[in-house]
């Protein structure tokens, strides 16, 4: 469905398309192509540059013996719990807004706001909310729930769930806007017909809304899974720095620390290679979803 429009009667010489493409291709080769090739080499070496020696797969072997790395993977996988939660919340709120409750436009804008704010800023604000003497605990004490005033970011048990709350808080707005935009492009008659047939609210949404949304839900799920596995560095770096006691160590932070704090470029590279393969798999999945989506019009 992409690029399917017939090309018009343009006249151009055979090399001309490549002339227009060349700046983009050069930039992409520099920022994606070459680094990825170099990455594969680095991950199989000890050292870099002229002093490098071939190390085979020893970097990878070492990696899977490192409890810190295994912990990081476990934490990334734990973050996947956020995905179904986000889908359900986004679905419910999008349907409510689609029912045109009073002020839905205002709610759409405000519910989307978190998605735009810099994670850095949000992360720091939430650290003041969740710290031991922070806003949340002050509030809990005020309403007589002092027993629930816990060290949200400072305890090894709670730090990861707290982080998950912030990630959901921030990313769910994208789902709401996405689902709502798709809903508004569904043929009204479909809903009207169901209403005439006497479908109640629940039947209406379960039998019409959810099936109509299935492809966007799939898209949002894939994007969110990729986010949880490889785009959460900012949250962790700002709010916990991986702590307490590595309780929130994730693979991206591990790459950063190995590469730039502990000077283990080769180990860091092998983690990056693994991340590349994992996201590569999901990109494949996403492209297939995209193909099935067909030519649905985007609504702003």
């Amino acid at each position: 469905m992409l690029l399917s429009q017939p090309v018009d009667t343009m006249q151009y010489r055979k090399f001309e398309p490549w002339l227009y493409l060349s700046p983009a291709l050069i930039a992409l080769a520099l920022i994606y192509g070459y680094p990825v090739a170099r990455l594969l080499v680095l991950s199989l070496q000890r050292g870099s540059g002229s002093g490098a020696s071939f190390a085979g797969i020893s970097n990878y072997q070492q990696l899977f013996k490192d409890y810190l790395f295994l912990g990081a993977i476990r934490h990334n996988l734990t973050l996947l719990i956020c995905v179904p939660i986000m889908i359900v919340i986004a679905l419910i709120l999008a349907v409510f807004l689609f029912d045109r409750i009073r002020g839905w436009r205002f709610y759409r804008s405000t519910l989307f706001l978190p998605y735009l704010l810099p994670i850095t800023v949000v992360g720091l604000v939430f650290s003041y909310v969740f710290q031991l003497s922070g806003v949340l605990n002050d509030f809990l004490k005020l309403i007589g729930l002092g027993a629930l005033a816990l060290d949200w970011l400072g305890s090894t048990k709670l730090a990861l769930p707290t982080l998950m709350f912030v990630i959901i808080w921030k990313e769910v707005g994208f789902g709401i806007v996405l689902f709502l935009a798709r809903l508004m492009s569904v043929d009204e008659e479909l809903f009207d017909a169901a209403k005439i047939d006497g479908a109640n609210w629940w039947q209406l949404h379960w039998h019409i809304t959810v099936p109509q949304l299935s492809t966007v839900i799939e898209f949002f799920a894939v994007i969110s899974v990729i986010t949880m596995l490889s785009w959460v560095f900012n949250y962790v770096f700002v709010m916990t720095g991986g702590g307490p006691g590595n309780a929130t160590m994730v693979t991206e932070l591990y790459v950063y620390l190995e590469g730039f704090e502990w000077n283990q470029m080769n180990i860091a590279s092998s983690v990056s290679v693994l991340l590349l393969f994992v996201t590569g798999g999901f990109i494949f999945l996403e492209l297939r979803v995209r193909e099935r989506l067909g030519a649905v019009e985007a609504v702003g």
Partner: protein
Amino acid sequence: MSLRDKALRVLASVTRQGLVILATILALFPVYFMAVSALKSRSEYISNKWGLPASLFLGNFATALAGEKFLIRFANSAILTVGSVGISMVIACLAAYAFSRMEFQAKRSLFNVILSLMVIPPVVMIIPLFVTMAHWGLINTRGGTILIYTGLLLPFSIYLMTNFFQTIPREIIDSARIDGCSNFAILWRIMMPLSSPAVITLIVVNALWAWNELLIALIFLQKDSLKTLMVAIATLRSRNYVDVPVTMAGMLIATIPIVVVYLLGQRYFIRGLTSGAFK
């Protein structure tokens, strides 16, 4: 309709409105907290953390703007954003022109490859990029970072512009050709002016990304005079002593450009972001 049905209906609508209001309060709380804290003196903040300030105290904004090279960091962020958004726009439009209006070998597969680059997390590239950039002496240079940002912005930009260029009717282009326009003139004088909605969308989405970016700025701009706002904010947490109200004021100033850009281009922004899922 029976009384019971009516009661159920009212209950449902109250629940619905209630849940949405609760979600909205949650969504807005951090911004509210940031704003009210920025308007409090330190002693007032300690005694009254989340309530409204007793009086409007603007001293924090002055302190934030004066201290810690705030304006330099602000300028650094602005230079990176403007530079990378501008350059990637030009490069993407040239490529999108070829994709949307010309036929050439391997066009579809090339387009699909570029599309899939969108999802590769930057963390995958940072190690080899650092090694290479160090070799070229591009660490701690704005040019090097703008180059990286440009590359990372390109896949989405090419995708969006190609989609939009395809919607321009061929008749317009045919008539321009009859008037003797060269291929480049068609792009520059016919396609670009017609594409302003897509261009605005792209500027808004890309500017937000570049302004908020942390990881690359953290690694490639370590020199103090080159640090961006987000890097300065991110490293605040690790300090032992932080003046919370002043920090909040600084973060509020750092967030204002985003909110302004969003409000100006809200329509376009939502369209741009959701376009990844449709079409």
